[in-house]
């Protein structure tokens, strides 16, 4: 199974929630091929640590438009990559909650949002999510690929995988300087 994790940075410094998403991906399928995507204006400090936390590859997409919040650009990049994956994981962060629904709508795929726990049930992704202000835990299933989910920060703890990933850089051709 291939899993795409949407890693996050703030001013080109990796955000810790990226490691948590990798832990969520590994918990879904320890044997999965996991790619972490970073969209940034240039190198991201800490990107190499993604490998040690479970990413097989780090995809660094660079474009000047990613110097600031750029949901349009991020949506375009993720939507173009997502169909190659069985599962796409975002953080339920300011960025993830902004972009994941747009990617899902663009691909006409359902979204399992704000999950605190994920599992595969055959081909379907199952997510447990607190609803009604945490008074009820709802379990939802989305079938088909790619299954897109946002994962609550803090729900998974970063796990060190004790290996290095490779960083692949590519420049975005698409003009994505439009903001937001």
């Amino acid at each position: 199974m291939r899993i795409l994790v949407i890693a996050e940075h703030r001013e080109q410094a990796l955000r810790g929630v990226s490691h948590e998403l990798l832990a969520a991906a590994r918990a879904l399928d320890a044997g999965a091929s996991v790619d972490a995507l970073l969209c940034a204006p240039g190198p991201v400090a800490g990107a190499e640590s993604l490998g040690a936390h479970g990413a097989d590859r780090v995809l660094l997409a660079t474009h000047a438009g990613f110097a600031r919040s750029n949901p349009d650009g991020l949506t375009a990049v993720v939507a173009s990559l997502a169909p190659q994956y069985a599962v796409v994981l975002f953080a339920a962060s300011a960025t993830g909650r902004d972009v994941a629904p747009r990617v899902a709508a663009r691909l006409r795929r359902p979204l399992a949002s704000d999950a605190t726990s994920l599992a595969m049930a055959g081909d379907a992704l199952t997510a447990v999510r607190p609803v009604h202000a945490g008074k009820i835990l709802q379990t939802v299933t989305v079938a088909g690929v790619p299954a897109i989910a946002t994962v609550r920060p803090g729900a998974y703890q970063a796990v060190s995988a004790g290996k290095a990933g490779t960083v692949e850089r590519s420049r975005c051709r698409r003009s994505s300087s439009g903001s937001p």
Partner: protein
Amino acid sequence: MKIAVCLKRVPDTGSKLAIAADGTSVDEAGVKFVPNPYDEFALEAAIALKEAAGAGETVVVTLGPDAAQETLRSALAMGLDRAVHLQGSGSADALAVAQALAAELAGFDLVLFGKMAVDDYNHATGPMVAELLGLPCITAVSMLEVSGGTVVAEREIEGGVETVTCALPAVVTCEKGLNTPRLPSLKGIMAAKKKPLDVKPASVPAAAVAVTGLALPPERQAGRIVGEGPDAVPALIELLRTEAKVL
């Protein structure tokens, strides 16, 4: 400026909720329903923008059962001009809801949502509608200004605030702190009874998100004293980080 606000009827956040016999829905018996609190910020923003502009039209749209008309009337009583009720049941699939709403929301300069509904916690319908309509979207805004066809908004991000601009038409989702929603006046309540409320059947696609179960969360555990004095601080911080996961 034509402004639409999407409103959802949700169980009062103070209600005690029980799981229905089917195991996948909330038992609605005896539950009080209210407008989604985040949507109230959107309603207030629409009224305030129209007041500031001195012209325009504000429309409140909901998708829901017949009882949702009461929620629409409360929005009209606050000051919205007219209402549209898309008759049907909601869905656990935010994309299905967005698809049902999108057609009704085409042609507005500004479409406002709450940043999330306090029942399903999806945070998704607004940006999905934006995508379906091909509009820019700014989510979770705590400050909103519209002038000369441009939106300037502030959004709360982890540990900061970001200022974002985009051109109209646009979709904006509203965060707490944006404004203080007004209470309907007696005059407003009387006027709301005469305002137009269109009822149309909703066309909600089949849900691709299946709710397979609901459960009550584990009981809250009793408090624990980690230790006393400065010596206990490292252990407390460790537990807050690893067990309570709040740091």
